[in-house]
């Protein structure tokens, strides 16, 4: 029988640094809750808003798969591998931090906020050579269907990471439904509602709610209002 966990939006940790407002689904920075450490290999789900002209100065990472999905505005990226790029709504960015990478991320606009999801996945191999990639997605490909945006395979749709994980985005009209079949045994799926309202296994999820489901092969998402959501399939053990 499927097991589930529900994380209401208002149960998340919050950090307010003035220029940065961040909601943490799982323990991060100054927010520590031993009951909210991870969902399988999904370790970080931060819902970030950065003021115009502001950003994260240069800082390091290692041994983590780091995915950024802009929801509004543009984010300027610069790293120690000489990558300089701007990602905007509709793009996805991935870094495999491996043996170590330094980077900085700034709001590309001097005035308007940038909003983005910052997602960290535990890698299935340590100390890889650091890598960076980004991809522009066709948003039409997620209207009333699931659009794969990440996988473990370089030749599959979306970006790839060092983990048996698959991400899908969906933008569904009210009253439709979507079925999801898990790709790998032992995996679970964490659903994050970007906007709207859906129901899964009888649990109603609203904007910014999170819901994990595992010990199942598939599940159905009933769309209660026009909705955008992110499905993150990850190993529960790795």
């Amino acid at each position, binding site marked *: 029988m499927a097991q589930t966990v529900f994380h209401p939006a208002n149960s998340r940790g919050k950090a307010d640094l003035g220029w940065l407002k961040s909601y943490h689904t799982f323990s991060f920075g100054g927010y520590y809750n031993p009951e909210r*450490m991870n969902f399988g290999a999904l370790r970080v789900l931060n819902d970030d808003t950065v003021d115009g002209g502001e950003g994260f100065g240069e800082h390091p990472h290692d*041994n983590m798969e780091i995915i950024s999905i802009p929801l509004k505005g543009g984010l300027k990226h610069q790293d120690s591998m000489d990558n300089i790029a701007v990602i905007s709504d509709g793009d996805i960015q991935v870094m495999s931090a491996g043996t170590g990478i330094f980077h900085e991320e700034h709001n590309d606009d001097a005035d308007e906020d940038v909003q983005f999801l910052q997602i960290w996945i535990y890698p299935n191999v340590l100390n890889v050579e650091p890598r960076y990639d980004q991809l522009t997605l066709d948003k039409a490909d997620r209207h009333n269907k699931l659009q794969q945006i990440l996988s473990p395979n370089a030749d599959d749709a979306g970006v790839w990471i060092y983990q048996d994980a698959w991400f899908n985005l969906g933008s569904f009209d009210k009253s439709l439904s979507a079925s999801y079949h898990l790709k790998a045994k032992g995996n679970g799926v964490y659903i994050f509602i970007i906007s709207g309202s859906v129901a899964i296994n009888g649990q109603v999820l609203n904007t910014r709610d999170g819901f994990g489901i595992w010990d199942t092969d598939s599940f159905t998402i009933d769309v209660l209002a026009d909705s955008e959501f992110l499905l993150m399939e990850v190993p529960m053990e790795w």
Partner: protein
Amino acid sequence: MKNIEILIVGKHPDIMKTILRLLNNKADWTGTGAFSADEALGLGKSVLFDVVLLGAGLSGVESKQIQDHFTVPVVQHYGGGSGLLYAEVYEALGV
């Protein structure tokens, strides 16, 4: 309050600086760095560590050597001195 002694072992000098700065910014925490298993085991003779963090770049042999030597929690550190660091230490301490 008891001072918490934390040993971080890793190969990247600049990431080590960041991790030590973050650890030593916390009241009642003292961070010490080592760049090899041999150095870590040597430090273990003079300091009673509460937690050992395994950073990036260590070989499997070195990681095992450290895990086998220390009787306190030895945990893999992910992220490189990031928002995960404090939670990793708290979790290892059973807070």
